């Protein structure tokens, strides 16, 4: 659709935020725009944000749901800081998000929702369009509801169903503004509503109406294009962290020649892992929706005893409930992966917001001396590899492993350069099928390199053995209250875990290695920290970064890396948990940049704060 007087401006990147009522379909619009941009070849990163309530009262701030996406023609690592474009479907969405909009940003309002009732509900005393507070932005008022009704008049659909399509007006208009073709979304609509052709046609009509509105209305004649990014060559898919993590588990099971067992109790934001794995039964995946968090973990221990790659997934409060069961797996020395998709805490906290505040709990949240490996995913696509690595360690070392993700990694998405499946390493297990001594089977006779005990599976004749949470005698595994044996077994369980330091990737330095300052991070702050280091290096500020995937044990070169720098800065979405660990383990005067607002760091925020710390 060429238009004579259209001005197309090429820009390197744009951040767009769609905001509306929970029922307005903003997540869908955002996802569609993202997928179209991914197929076009942009680099991108997304940040969905939704309320914990499924349908909070319409028109209120509490009910606002949003989706932010940054698309770029270069390699980006975050979903952008302040949006350049804000689409607000009602006054509440405007009120909740306007303060983030970049100066002179483009503001698209659903004009029809700005009735007095909605304006009051959003908490405005006067219509924000008249109060002057929108000065400094480029405001476009679009009668989205009127357009939808007119466009869909020809269809035999009830009134409420008609208005549901107004999100397609918004998507069409944004597609026009950023020169995105509609074909991909049209195909998607036809797929989704295959059984309801009338609804499919209506949605496509609304989409096109939005697009054509851009063509017709003079205000929109200035459009933008973000060119393809020069990403490394390869085949890409757009992946979010929960799906990446799920696939990593499936891949690990397959490469270990085991079946996957996933025990879980529904909890935000981890439930999507349960949903995803439930779809893939043809990979011999057993998903078990348990009666509670404890049963989910306990059944996973039973599955592990029986020879499955056993995984139990949850979020913060659920991890607390699983604590005793994790200790059992640790004491019985059974492989188990515990996934914790962190959210704001304590207690029910902020169920739909990211936080990194369970690190200490993952490390120390058990009774007794109970060390276990802790691994963290740093981005949506990395969640695949982190899940693979957690499984590798659990199986190789016969130990429970805690895998930390968070809401930001879990629900955000990014392009993933697909790995070659045949190049993923096979995973070793300690499965034993024959006696390991001439005199009989010793279930706690350890591998001399890994200290792992053999894994005898029920069904194997001659290896019948009993295991439990009482202290075991080294070798025989019989219950033992012997003083020296308990000392030995406690030390052995700790050695086993610390020994893993030699079997994991080294800590790598990124950025300016000659700098005096090192920014250390873990988990989902990876994108923000890396972007900040890039920005600082570009403007001549000397700084480097390093990012932990393994937090227990730390990679064996950690001290060497830390010793190269005079100043260590640790940004975290908590009040300083890695900070304490690093100070304690390496006796360095590290400083934290900490935030627990339920929001991730923006790249600019980190850039500014790191620079401040450097200059302190």
């Amino acid at each position, binding site marked *: 659709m060429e238009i004579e007087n259209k001005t197309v401006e090429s820009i390197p990147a744009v951040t767009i935020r769609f905001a509306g009522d929970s029922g307005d379909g903003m997540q869908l619009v955002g996802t569609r725009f993202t997928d179209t941009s991914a197929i076009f070849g942009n680099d991108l990163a997304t940040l969905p944000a939704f309320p914990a309530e499924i349908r909070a009262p319409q028109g209120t701030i509490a009910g606002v749901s949003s989706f932010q996406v940054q698309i770029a023609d270069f390699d980006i690592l975050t979903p952008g800081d302040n949006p350049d474009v804000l689409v607000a479907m009602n006054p509440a969405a405007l009120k909740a998000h306007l303060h983030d909009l970049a100066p002179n940003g483009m503001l698209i309002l659903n004009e029809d929702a700005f009735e007095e009732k909605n304006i009051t509900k959003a908490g405005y005393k006067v219509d924000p369009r008249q109060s002057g507070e929108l000065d400094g932005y480029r405001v476009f008022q679009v009668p989205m509801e009127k357009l939808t009704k007119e466009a869909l008049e020809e269809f035999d659909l009830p009134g409420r169903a008609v208005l549901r399509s107004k999100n397609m007006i918004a998507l069409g208009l944004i597609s026009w503004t950023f020169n995105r073709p509609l074909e991909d979304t049209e195909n998607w609509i036809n797929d989704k509503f295959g059984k309801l052709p009338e609804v499919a046609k209506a949605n496509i009509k609304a989409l096109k109406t939005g697009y054509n509105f851009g063509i017709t209305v003079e205000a929109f004649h200035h459009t933008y294009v973000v060119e393809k990014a020069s990403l490394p060559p390869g085949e890409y898919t757009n992946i979010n962290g929960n799906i990446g993590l799920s696939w990593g588990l499936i891949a690990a099971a397959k490469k270990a020649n085991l079946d996957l067992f996933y025990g879980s109790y529904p909890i935000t934001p981890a439930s999507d892992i349960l949903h995803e794995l439930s779809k893939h039964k043809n*990979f011999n995946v057993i998903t078990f929706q348990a009666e509670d968090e404890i049963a989910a973990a306990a059944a996973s221990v039973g599955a592990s005893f029986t020879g499955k790659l056993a995984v139990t997934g949850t979020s913060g409060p659920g991890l607390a409930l699983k604590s005793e069961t994790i200790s059992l797996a640790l004491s019985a020395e059974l492989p188990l992966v515990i996934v914790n998709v962190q959210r704001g805490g304590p207690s029910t906290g902020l169920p739909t917001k990211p936080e990194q505040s369970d690190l200490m709990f993952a490390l120390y949240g058990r009774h007794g001396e109970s060390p276990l490996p802790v691994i963290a995913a740093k981005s949506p696509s990395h969640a695949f590899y982190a899940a693979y690595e957690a499984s590798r360690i659990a199986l190789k070392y016969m130990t429970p492993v805690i895998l930390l993700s968070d809401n930001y990694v879990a629900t955000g998405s990014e392009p993933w350069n697909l790995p070659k499946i045949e190049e993923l390493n096979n995973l070793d297990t300690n499965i034993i099928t024959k006696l390991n001594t001439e005199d009989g089977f010793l279930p706690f006779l350890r591998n001399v390199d890994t200290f792992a005990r053999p894994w005898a599976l029920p069904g194997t004749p001659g290896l019948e053995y009993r295991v439990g949470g009482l202290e075991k005698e080294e070798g025989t595994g019989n219950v033992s209250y012997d003083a020296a044996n308990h000392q030995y077994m406690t030390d052995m369980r700790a050695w086993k875990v610390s020994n893993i330091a030699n079997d994991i990737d080294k800590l790598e330095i990124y950025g300016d290695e000659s700098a005096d300052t090192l920014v250390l991070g873990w988990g989902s702050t990876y994108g923000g920290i890396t972007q900040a280091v890039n920005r600082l290096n570009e403007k001549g500020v000397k700084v480097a970064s390093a990012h932990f995937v393994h937090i227990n044990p730390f990679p064996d070169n950690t001290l060497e890396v830390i010793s190269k720098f005079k100043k260590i800065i640790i940004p975290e979405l908590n009040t300083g948990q890695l900070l304490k660990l690093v100070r304690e383990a390496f006796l360095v005067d590290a400083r934290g940049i900490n935030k627990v607002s339920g929001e991730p760091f923006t790249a600019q925020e980190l850039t500014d704060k790191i620079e401040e710390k450097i200059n302190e």
Partner: protein
Amino acid sequence: MSKIPVTYKRSDMQSDQEVKWCPGCGDYTILASVQNFMAEMGISKEKIVFVSGIGCAARFPYYMNTYGVHSIHGRAPAVATGVSVSNPDLSVWVVSGDGDSLSIGGNHLIHALRKNVNIKILMFNNQIYGLTKGQYSPTSEEGKKTKSSPFGSVEMPLNPMSLALGAEASFVARSIDMDRDLTAGILEEAKNHKGSAFVEIYQNCNVFNDKAFEQLTNKETKVANRINLVHGEKTVFGEDGHKAVVIRNGIAQIVDTKDVDESEIYVHNIHEENPSIAFSLSRLSHGPYGPTPLGVFRKVQRDTFTEEVHDQINNAKEQKGEGELDKLIRSLGTWDVS
């Protein structure tokens, strides 16, 4: 299960670990009953898994020369669910006590029964907390004086048979430690049952709650107090069968046999789909006091969780083919960058 019948001696089923219950504990008798039964049940011992929680009874797996997990308090049904669904070929047995099953593990018990997981749950009910040295349990009688209830327990006890029936259990039975034949018969019925089986075994704790079941074991009183439930037989009990059970308006009642027409006497049917009569039988006593039914209350067939999970997996493989990682990671659509 193994196709060739396997028989063992009792000693083959015994592990090399010394049994450490208190001398005179009812658990010894039950262990002997179970070991004798297992030796002849025709399943290879590598296919047998015992799972327990915490408590005196929970030490049971250590004494069986099979696979075993001594897990954590109350969670044995959940652990056993993981074992059973992971390998449907296994014969999975849970050993638990009244505190383990009905107090800390109540949630797991009801859900394992509801789901009809293919596990056999043996709950040794001694109506006391033994391992923690004598506090009242969820089956202790009201008024029970213990260390934690010096003025008498003020709690209504649970009726384990009623609870299991209410939890949609497909197999519900009760035995008593001293009656080895009854226990062996119930174990055989449980073994042959597809799905979860719940077996309460009254067990004397001679240290903290001695003679709790005396009315059912004492020579003088047991004939009057044991209502033996036998499938297909008239429910009469007492000396010369002078007492009988009848069902009136759906409610089980005890009557003098001579006062009723013979045709009114309840003929026990373990396969009755409707659990109401079994429930009503479970209400004839609330604890081992007075006439108390023993035997199989209910045994009905329905789909098991264990099998259905695997049916779904097999269906998925038939429909979609064995999963391929290469296809999986491309399933959301891809694009090429060159």
